[in-house]
């Protein structure tokens, strides 16, 4: 496995400022550096909202019983942005929420790093919980992001969310 065959999917084409602009407008973007939670939260501030629910997906030190050293996420950015926009649009139709934002990180991540952040605001609490969970599940099912886990012996494996 040579790195160059994945180079196009380990970094994003857009600037970081553009990523946060797209996330604010469409509700979804990919990013290839640390996710700035406070920047995303600011976008969600709304005096009509009593509820804010967020999910952070972090790199665990294990998967099943295997010890994990690091992970690399790969993304197909242009499809991810189109599909992410559709997911957030659908979430706003399905749930009584005011706004939602999610960012998925790609590239090499260490244990403890945040791979995905999903935040939802709504007037009342249950729709925020329901929408946050649905958006996360739908991202995991439909956003073209892949990951390889690396283990202590330097071996690695492509993972799938479907088993």
């Amino acid at each position, binding site marked *: *496995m*040579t790195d*160059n*065959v*994945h*180079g*196009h*999917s380990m970094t994003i084409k857009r600037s970081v400022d553009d990523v946060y602009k797209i996330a604010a407008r469409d509700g979804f973007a990919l990013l290839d550096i640390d996710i700035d939670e406070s920047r995303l939260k600011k976008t969600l501030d709304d005096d009509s909202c009593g509820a804010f629910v967020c999910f952070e*997906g972090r790199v665990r030190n294990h998967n099943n019983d295997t010890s994990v050293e690091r992970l690399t*996420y*790969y*993304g*197909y950015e*242009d*499809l991810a942005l*189109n*599909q992410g926009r559709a997911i957030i649009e659908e979430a706003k139709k399905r749930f009584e929420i005011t706004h939602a934002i999610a960012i*998925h990180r790609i590239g090499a991540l260490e244990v403890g790093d945040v*791979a*995905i952040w999903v935040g939802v605001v709504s007037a009342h609490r249950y729709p925020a919980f329901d929408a946050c969970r649905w958006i*996360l599940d739908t*991202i*995991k*099912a*439909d*956003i*073209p*992001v*892949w*990951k390889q886990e690396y283990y202590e012996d330097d071996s690695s494996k*492509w*993972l*799938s*969310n*479907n088993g």
Partner: protein
Amino acid sequence: MRTIDMDTNTDSTMNINVLYFASLADEANCQQETVTIQQSTSLTELYEQLCQKHRFSRPQSELRVAVNDYFAKWTDPIRDGDSVVFITPVAGG
């Protein structure tokens, strides 16, 4: 970027761009390639041709397909200049 020389690009053929991600990029050993195919080649047929070339281990039944950066149906037509991506099971989150 490499080209499959099955045909030259006459009226009866079209050039499309195929991008590879994840295990398909490993197996194809490239990120993308321009492919010249017969007019009216279906997405299923395209995957079969590329399977023979690259010996992809995934059957088509396990994949989704995207055309021009949107998910597509396997029955959607391919047009000259399209960008096609075969999507192995995703693993985000």
